[in-house]
C-alpha cells in the first residue's frame, strides 16, 4: 500500500534529493511522493531537513543532487518563479510579508496584470477568495496591524490568488492560537475538497492524525517511511521520528515550595500602541515551583514578562525579586539579582549573525573566567561553549557557526542552555517548546523540571494548555491583562480554563457560579 503507487497518482515526486550547506548535509537522498488532493504531513526532528526539502521544491534552494517530478514531468526549478508557474505555493514559517504594506499590495506583488494601485479588481478578487474559503479579510489593512493568524491568511490568499495546485505549509500552526489552528485545519480541508494538494510540516502529532491522509517521516536528511495516517498512531510516529520511544514521562518530583522569589504587585503596563496591556496584575512565584500563565497570546503576556525583566517601562505597581524591590532597576541589575529569561521571540535574546560561542557568553562575558579585565579569554569561551553544546545536545557544525543557521529546535536549546547555566533564582520562560519536535519538547520539559528541583522559581508563559498543565504547580489564566483565575494545576477544571481564556468567566463570577471548584484562590 505504501510503496508502488502508480505514478499518475502522484502530483509531486522528489527523488534522491541531496542538499549540502557548509558543515551540514540538510538533505541526504530524501524522497517524497505526494498524491493529488491529499493532505500530506511531513514529520521529523528539528534539523531533519523538512524545511530544506520544501525549499528545494519551491526553488529557494538548489539541490546538489536529485530529481523533481511534477504532474508526471521531470522539472528543474531554478527559482520561486518557476515553482509558481508549476502551480506550487509555499508558506514559510517566518511569513514573507511586507509589514508596512496593505494586504492587497502583498497579495498582488509580482503579478503583471495590474499597473495602477490600489486596484479595485484585485481587491474584489481577494474578497471573493476569502469568502469562498471562509476567511475574514480587510484588503486595505496593513500587515503589522494583523494577528499572526490573520497574517497567515494573507499568505494563503497569496497562494490562492495565483491559483496554486500544490500548497506547502511550514509549521503553519506553530504561531497560532488553538482557535486559529482549528480554523486553519478547516480551511485546508476546504482546499483539498477543491482538488488542491497540501504538504504540511508540523511537530504536533495530534494535527497529523487529525488532518492528514498520509505522513512521511524524515530523519537526518532522509525519508524513513511514508504511512497512511489511519494505519498509524501518535506513539508510532514519535518513535519513528526520534528513533526511540518518546514517553512524555515527566520526572515531576514533589518539591517543597520555598519562599517567594518573585512578587508582582498591582502591575500596570502599556503595550506598543500605548494602550493598557497589563492591568492591576498581582502574582507571586515561589522557589521550587513552576507558576504557569495560560492564555491566548496577545493578552498581555509579552508585556508582563518584559516589565519584569526591565525591557518595558511600567505605568504602576511594584516588582520584588528575592525581597529586593527592582521596580526601578535597569535590566542588567535585574540579571544580577538572579533573573534568567527565555523570550517567546527568540531573536530578542540572540544575535542571529553572531557565532554560537559568542551568543553563549552574552550574559557572562564581563565576569571571570570568560571576561579577563577588558579582554575575553577565548579559551574559556571555547571551553564554556563546548560544555554547553555537549550537555544540552545542541546540534551545530561547530561553535563558530552563526547561530541563525541552526535549526529552530537547536536555537531554542542553545538559548535555554545559556539561561539555565547561569543558575537563575527566577527563570522566566515564554513558549519554551514552540516549534520543537517531540523529543526536544520532552528534553526541555525535563530541563525546566530540573530547574524547579534545583529550587529555582519558574514563571512559565505558554499558549499551549497541555504544556502549561503538565509542568505547572500553580496555574493562572490571563485575559486582557488581568488574571481571571488561579489554582493548583492538578485541580484545574478544563472547562473553566477555556471560559477564562475567552474572558467569559471572571474572578468574581467564578466563585458565584461554582463554589465547588477546589483550589480557587483568585
Amino acid at each position, binding site marked *: 500500500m505504501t510503496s508502488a503507487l502508480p505514478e499518475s497518482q502522484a502530483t509531486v515526486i522528489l527523488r534522491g534529493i541531496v542538499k549540502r550547506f557548509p558543515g551540514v548535509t540538510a538533505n541526504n537522498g530524501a524522497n517524497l511522493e505526494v498524491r493529488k488532493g491529499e493532505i500530506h504531513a511531513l514529520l521529523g526532528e528539528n534539523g531533519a531537513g523538512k524545511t530544506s526539502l520544501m525549499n528545494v521544491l519551491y526553488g529557494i534552494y538548489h539541490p546538489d543532487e536529485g530529481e523533481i517530478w511534477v504532474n508526471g514531468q521531470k522539472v528543474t526549478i531554478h*527559482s520561486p518563479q518557476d515553482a509558481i508557474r508549476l502551480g506550487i505555493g509555499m508558506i514559510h514559517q517566518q511569513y514573507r510579508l511586507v509589514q508596512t*504594506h496593505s494586504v492587497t499590495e502583498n497579495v498582488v*506583488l*509580482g503579478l503583471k496584470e495590474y499597473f495602477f494601485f490600489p486596484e479595485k479588481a484585485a481587491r474584489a478578487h481577494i474578497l471573493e477568495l476569502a469568502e469562498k474559503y471562509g476567511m475574514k479579510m480587510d484588503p486595505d489593512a496593513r500587515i503589522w496591524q494583523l494577528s499572526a493568524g490573520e497574517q497567515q491568511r494573507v499568505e494563503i490568499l*497569496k497562494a490562492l490568488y495565483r491559483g496554486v495546485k500544490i500548497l506547502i505549509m511550514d509549521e503553519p500552526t506553530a504561531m497560532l492560537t488553538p482557535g486559529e489552528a482549528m480554523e486553519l485545519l478547516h480551511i485546508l480541508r476546504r482546499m483539498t475538497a477543491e482538488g488542491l494538494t497540501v504538504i504540511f510540516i508540523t511537530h504536533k502529532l495530534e494535527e497529523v492524525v487529525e488532518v492528514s491522509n498520509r505522513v512521511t517521516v524524515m530523519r537526518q536528511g532522509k525519508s524513513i517511511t511514508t504511512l497512511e495516517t489511519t494505519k498509524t498512531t501518535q506513539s508510532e510516529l514519535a518513535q519513528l521520528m526520534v528513533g526511540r520511544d518518546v514517553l512524555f514521562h515527566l520526572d515531576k518530583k514533589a518539591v517543597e515550595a520555598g519562599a517567594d522569589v518573585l512578587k508582582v504587585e498591582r502591575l500596570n503596563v502599556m503595550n506598543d500602541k500605548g494602550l493598557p496591556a497589563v492591568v492591576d496584575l498581582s502574582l507571586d512565584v515561589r522557589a521550587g515551583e513552576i507558576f504557569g500563565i495560560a492564555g491566548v497570546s496577545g493578552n498581555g503576556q509579552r508585556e508582563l514578562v518584559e516589565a519584569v525583566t526591565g525591557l518595558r517601562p511600567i505605568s504602576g505597581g511594584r516588582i520584588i525579586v528575592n525581597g529586593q524591590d527592582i521596580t526601578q532597576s535597569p535590566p542588567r541589575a535585574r540579571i544580577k539579582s538572579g533573573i534568567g529569561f527565555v523570550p517567546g521571540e527568540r531573536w530578542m535574546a540572540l544575535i542571529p549573525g553572531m557565532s554560537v560561542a559568542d551568543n553563549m557568553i552574552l550574559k557572562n562575558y564581563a565576569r571571570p573566567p570568560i571576561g579577563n579585565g577588558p579582554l575575553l579569554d577565548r579559551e574559556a569561551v571555547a571551553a564554556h561553549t563546548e560544555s554547553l553544546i555537549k550537555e544540552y545536545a545542541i546540534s551545530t557544525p561547530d561553535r563558530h557557526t552563526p547561530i541563525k543557521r541552526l535549526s529552530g529546535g537547536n536555537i531554542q536549546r542553545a538559548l535555554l542552555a545559556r539561561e539555565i547555566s547561569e543558575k537563575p533564582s527566577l527563570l522566566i520562560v515564554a513558549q519554551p517548546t514552540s516549534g520543537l519536535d517531540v523529543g526536544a519538547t520532552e528534553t526541555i520539559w525535563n530541563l525546566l523540571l530540573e530547574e524547579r528541583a534545583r529550587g529555582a522559581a519558574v514563571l512559565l508563559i505558554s499558549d499551549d494548555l497541555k504544556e502549561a498543565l503538565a509542568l505547572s504547580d500553580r496555574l493562572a489564566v490571563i485575559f486582557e491583562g488581568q488574571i481571571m483565575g488561579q489554582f493548583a494545576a492538578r485541580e484545574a477544571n478544563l472547562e473553566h480554563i477555556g471560559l477564562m481564556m475567552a474572558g467569559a468567566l471572571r474572578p468574581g463570577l467564578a466563585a458565584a457560579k461554582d463554589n465547588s471548584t477546589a483550589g480557587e484562590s483568585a
Partner: protein
Amino acid sequence: MLEFILAAVRAAIPAGTPLLYGTLGEVYAERSGVLNLGVEGMMIMGAVSGFAVAQTTGSAGLGILAAAIVGGLLALIHAFASITLRVNQVVSGLALTMLGLGISGMIGKKFVGQPLAARLQPIHIPGLSDLPILGELLFKFDIMVYLGILLVPALWFVLYKTRIGVTLRSVGENPSAADALGVNVAFVRYAAVAFGGMMAGIGGAYLSISYAPAWIEGMTAGAGWIVVALTIFAIWDPRRALLGAYLFGGVRVLQFRLQPLGVSPNLLNMLPFILTILVLWLSSGQAAKRRIGAPAALMTAYSREER
C-alpha cells in the same frame, strides 16, 4: 525686507534644484534597500562631464544627458559591488565618492576658468512670467527647475500608485517576500541604484551648466552629503524631498547674503551641516512616532539561500 525675502526665495529655488534631483534619486535607490553614499562622487562627476560635453558640443541638453549617463554608470559600480558581490554598502559608496572627487579634478583641469557658452537660459512662459512680483518670483527659471518640480508628483505617483512602486518598496522592505513571489530582487535593485545615479549626475550638471555656470574643482562642496541627509529628512518620500531641497537651497543662499553683513564665513560654512544634524534629529523622532522610517532591508544584501 520684502525685497530681501523675495530675493532669497528667488535664489533658493535654483540653489535647491541640484539637491532635489539628487535626493529624488537617492530616495528611489534607498527604497530598494541600497544605501548609496557615493552621491557626492556621482554629482561631481555629473558636473564635470556635463560641463565638458556642453562646452565641446555647444549643447546644454547634451551635457545634461551625458551627466545622467556618467552618473548612472558610476552607480552601477556601486550596484555591482553591493548587490552582486555583497560588499558592505557603506564602504562601497564611500569608495565611489572618493573616486568621483579624484577623477573629476583630473579630467576637469583644462575646463577650469572657462565661461560656459551653452548655459541654460530662463524660459519665458507667456502670461505667467509677465505677472508682477509672482512672475519674477516663480516663473523666471530654466527648464531644469520646472522639470525637477514636475518629477516630484510623478515619482511620488509611481512609488505609491503603480506596480513599479509596490515592487520597489517591497524589495526594500522584505526582499525575501518579493523573491518568493518571483520578483527579481537583484534587477530591481540595480535599476533603482542606476536611476539614483542618473539623477545625481543631472543634479551635478545643473550646478556646472546653469547654477555656476562654470567648472570649479570640488564645486559640489558637500551637496552630495546633504542629499544623503535630505533623503532621511524626506522620510523616503518625494514630496518631502522638495521641501527639504528648497530649504537647504535657502540656507546656501543665506550664506552668501549674510557674509557681507560681517558674519564669519567659517560659521556660515557650517550652517548647512548644523541644519543637517538638526533636521536628522527632528525627523527621526517624528518618523518613529508615525511608524514609518527607513526601508526595513536598507543596507542588507539579499541572497536567496542564506537564512
